[in-house]
């Protein structure tokens, strides 16, 4: 569990009045940190669909070429699966046959961005867990006429449907994508959910206000941990937007579970590797 998630859960406990919610929050914290000092235990057996986000500085040179990233991503996921660190989750979507290695077409997913201002490479590993992905993903291609009201209605309806009975493992980080083309819209919603740290606000003041307003609103719904009731209904709401075609208004919703696992390996210009909880994923 990343430090920002830990800090947010600790804050939520102090505000929580619901008895069952308090029990579950306290137990989760105790379990994540007191019983798991080395951080080597699986708090949730769903180790997700493998996803990497890689940020590369202009002057970074990779032995074997930049495309080695794809081979190394595949090798690392296969190794971790064979060593019992990752559960073999990935199957053929039609035959449902498990590949046994977590590899397959487009798996692991590797998203690469370049940054002229850094002299290092960040490799962010994010396991995309099944519950929040399958129950917490929505897309709607709206008409420009639907505007802000349509966006708001869409977001609120998604929250209700996805958090019911704890389907997405709330309190979630909710990622919203507005605009772009269909694929960009979903991509930025996903990145908003899984990459931006808790408490991070969009640089656009109006969007930042909307994020905070939604956090306050969802907290008042009474969803609680795993949807069992309480004030701890959301970790954060992150909204990203992209320039979009004049003809449409695409909106996407993607939720991340309350464990919100992500880990960053920063490979410095001296070859030294340091580990951290998040990378500044600025790509706007």
């Amino acid at each position: 569990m990343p430090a920002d998630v830990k800090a947010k859960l600790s804050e939520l406990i102090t505000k929580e009045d619901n008895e069952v919610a308090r029990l579950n929050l306290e137990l989760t914290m105790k379990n994540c940190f007191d019983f798991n000092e080395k951080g080597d235990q699986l708090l949730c057996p769903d180790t997700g669909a493998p996803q990497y986000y890689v940020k590369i500085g202009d002057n970074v040179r990779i032995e074997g070429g930049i495309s080695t990233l794809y081979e190394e991503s595949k090798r690392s996921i296969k190794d971790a699966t064979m060593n019992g660190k990752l559960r073999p989750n990935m199957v053929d979507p039609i035959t449902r046959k498990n590949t046994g290695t977590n590899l397959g077409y487009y798996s692991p997913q590797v998203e690469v961005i370049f940054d002229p201002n850094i002299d290092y490479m960040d490799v962010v590993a994010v396991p995309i867990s099944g519950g929040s992905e399958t129950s917490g993903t929505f897309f709607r291609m709206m008409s420009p006429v639907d505007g802000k009201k349509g966006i708001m209605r869409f977001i609120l309806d998604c929250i209700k449907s996805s958090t019911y009975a704890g389907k997405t493992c709330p309190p979630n980080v909710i990622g919203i994508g507005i605009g772009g083309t269909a694929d960009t819209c979903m991509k930025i919603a996903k990145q908003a959910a899984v990459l931006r740290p808790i408490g991070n606000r969009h640089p656009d003041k109006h969007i930042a206000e909307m994020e905070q307003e939604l956090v306050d609103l969802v907290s008042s719904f009474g969803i609680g941990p795993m949807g069992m009731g309480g004030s701890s209904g959301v970790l954060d709401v992150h909204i990203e937007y992209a320039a979009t075609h004049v003809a449409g208004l695409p909106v996407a919703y993607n939720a991340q579970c309350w464990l919100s696992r992500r880990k960053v390996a920063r490979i410095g210009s001296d070859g030294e590797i340091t580990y951290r909880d998040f990378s500044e994923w600025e790509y706007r």
Partner: protein
Amino acid sequence: MITKRLTIPLSEKEVRQLSIEDVVYLDGLIYTCRSLFQIRAVEQSIVPPIDFKNMNVMFHMGGVMKKVENRWEAVSLISTSSIRFEKLGAPIIKKLGVRAIIGKSTMGGKTMQAMKEAGCVHLSWGALIGNILARNVERVVDVYDLEELGPLEATWVLKVKNFGPFIVDIDANGNNLFNHVNAQVSRELEAAYEKYGIKDYTYTCTDTDIDSGC
């Protein structure tokens, strides 16, 4: 919120005394299953040789098992979403005499009705306790159909001790904790719709079929 530690097999009486929001810890033998076990049990009457009368707690398996030398161990154990097995809930409860289903999310009206009639509850975890639950498995007693169905769909028989905590989210009196929460969320949402002027909002219809009522 009442905390109870119960020994398997569970009696009908003690199950009927459980209420939603009660916290339950279990001792004894449980078995795991997912969809394939349930489909085969209900549609083909194929079940592993288990004494279901004395082993009446079913666990919707989502876990990682590991073989250490000649023994199986649970690495991390959490129950998976139950609603996707709704179609098989009522028949499986009646057929196997299940007194408690350990799962996630919820089950639908038909299963709730069967739970009321037969005396059965649904239990869910509310905290991230995959490692604790794995540690509370004293022993992996048996595994059936591992080769054929793989580790997630195989039937594992586990001896558990102080296994929990689980929250009763459907009791045997027709109550569903999530429906209570949902009713409150719906009330709050109505107020939010009102506030943003989107109570009766309908998205712009772009269907050009003249008969669509657009």
